[in-house]
């Protein structure tokens, strides 16, 4: 595994392609999680969205990582539906605005990107850590990324730390009662089930780390 001090448009493209692959591979698992505490369409909706993203990427030549993420954002908003479309779309939209015009992302820029994306999701969905939502993956991931960056980690180390924390965060939703989204109507009946949005978020973080490190 080679060390990467910065990540450019090629990485952004390969990350998003890996997102599409892993979402497709985990589609039925996400559907299963969502059927238990939601309405069972999360895997289907996200898969449809990333499939559309791949088509859009094939038909365009984004110049910067921000251009890639902006295209991802508008496509997800237009094609996913439900709550996930606006939430993941807003994440990529706000994240892209934070790194506008930057050709090569260093650890600093990646943390700015992730923090802005997370802030966008919080502003849109108004969820906090512990509400049993995707924020339970995102906030620990952003915090881990920042602490890795502050202790001198490079771009790949920052994304790996974020991916580890997102996976732990997704697992941490299992014992929780949901306070946002459709699962919140279930009360205690949601306990024991992992939040599908936290799980899909963790998949995207892992895809970012894996594509940065090879």
């Amino acid at each position, binding site marked *: 595994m080679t060390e990467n001090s910065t990540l450019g448009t090629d990485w952004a493209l390969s990350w998003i392609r890996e997102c599409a692959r892993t979402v497709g591979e985990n589609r039925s698992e996400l559907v299963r999680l969502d059927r238990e505490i939601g309405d069972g369409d999360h895997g289907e909706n996200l898969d449809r969205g990333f499939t559309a993203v791949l088509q859009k990427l094939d038909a365009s030549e984004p110049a910067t990582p921000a251009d890639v993420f902006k295209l991802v954002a508008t496509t997800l908003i237009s094609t996913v539906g439900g709550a996930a479309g*606006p939430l993941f779309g807003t994440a990529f939209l706000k994240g892209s605005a934070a790194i506008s015009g930057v050709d090569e992302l260093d650890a600093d820029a990646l943390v700015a990107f992730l923090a802005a994306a997370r802030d966008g999701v919080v502003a849109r969905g108004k969820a906090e850590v512990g509400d049993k939502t995707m924020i339970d993956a995102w906030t620990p991931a952003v915090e881990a990324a920042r602490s890795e960056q502050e202790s001198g980690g490079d771009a790949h180390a920052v994304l790996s730390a974020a991916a580890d924390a997102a996976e732990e965060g997704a697992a941490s939703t299992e014992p929780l009662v949901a306070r946002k*989204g459709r699962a919140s*109507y279930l009360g205690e009946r949601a306990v024991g089930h992992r939040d599908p949005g936290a799980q899909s978020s963790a998949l995207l973080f892992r895809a970012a780390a894996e594509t940065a490190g090879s």
Partner: protein
Amino acid sequence: MKKLINDPRSVVDEALEGVALAHPELLTVHRDPAFIARAQGATSGKVALVSGGGSGHEPLHGGFVGFGMLDAAVPGPVFTSPTPDPIVAATKAVDGGAGVLHIVKNYTGDVLNFETAADLAEAEGIEVRSVIVNDDVAVKDSLYTAGRRGVAGTVLIEKIAGAAAERGDDLDAVTAIAERVNARVRSMGVALTAPTVPHAGEPSFTIGDDEIEIGIGIHGEPGRERIGLEPADAIVDRILGPILEDLPFESGQKVLLFVNGMGGSPLVELYIVFRRAAQVLGERGIEVARSLVGNHVTSLEMQGFSISVLALDEEMIELWDAPVQTAALRWGR
């Protein structure tokens, strides 16, 4: 599960084609993106009302597009919110220069997609306000949930706010009356059976032949409790109590009593429900000044009903009585 469909994937598209063919004098069905608008398009100088949400609740919302109610309705896939694109397109198509009010049922997906659409429409210079409908008293503790759901009370808001827009109220005034109706209407529902989403192919939840779910949402989301089947009067008493205590509705209050069918219960049963609800209101000194009975906010073929009670004032009565001409509600014109 038997369904009167051709292909589960084309249910919404084919239904929209049918709507367009059935009501050409009232509405136009737009494609790519899909929305339903009044046949004559935007009304210059009038505040426009746009609503929408997942399909499967017909006649909500497309059946309420026309004079005196909505200017456009945006149907999503069955039980799934539409994305922002068609909402923006509908908003632009019906804006008559006086601004647009979005009427949104409080479900996370609907709220997020309409919020995003409102941001996008405002970026294009259209003034957009939103009212989030949350009339369902079955969701108890709104601090620890996504909040009360928007259910059948939505129809009353669309009718009354639509009449206010039609008489020339500005965007602030139309928004204010929509908020006032939302603040004064309370609803709760009951399911006897589960609906089956066409592409899912199996019922949304399992419920025994002798069981009912009290406090059901309009997509079969769980309610307060699962109990054994009871006589209609007892079921009505169970849900009317929490509705009346919530506002609360006081003796002497004039109300609109709305008994809504969820799609699979015959009208004859809905009138049995209405009978008992009117009796209970009478005993409490609450005057049923206006009424509505029928399948207006449905949950596919689910057997069940909801009761909505709206505390009326004189202005609401005048606006309720004002002419309306839509596929599903029509009087005075």
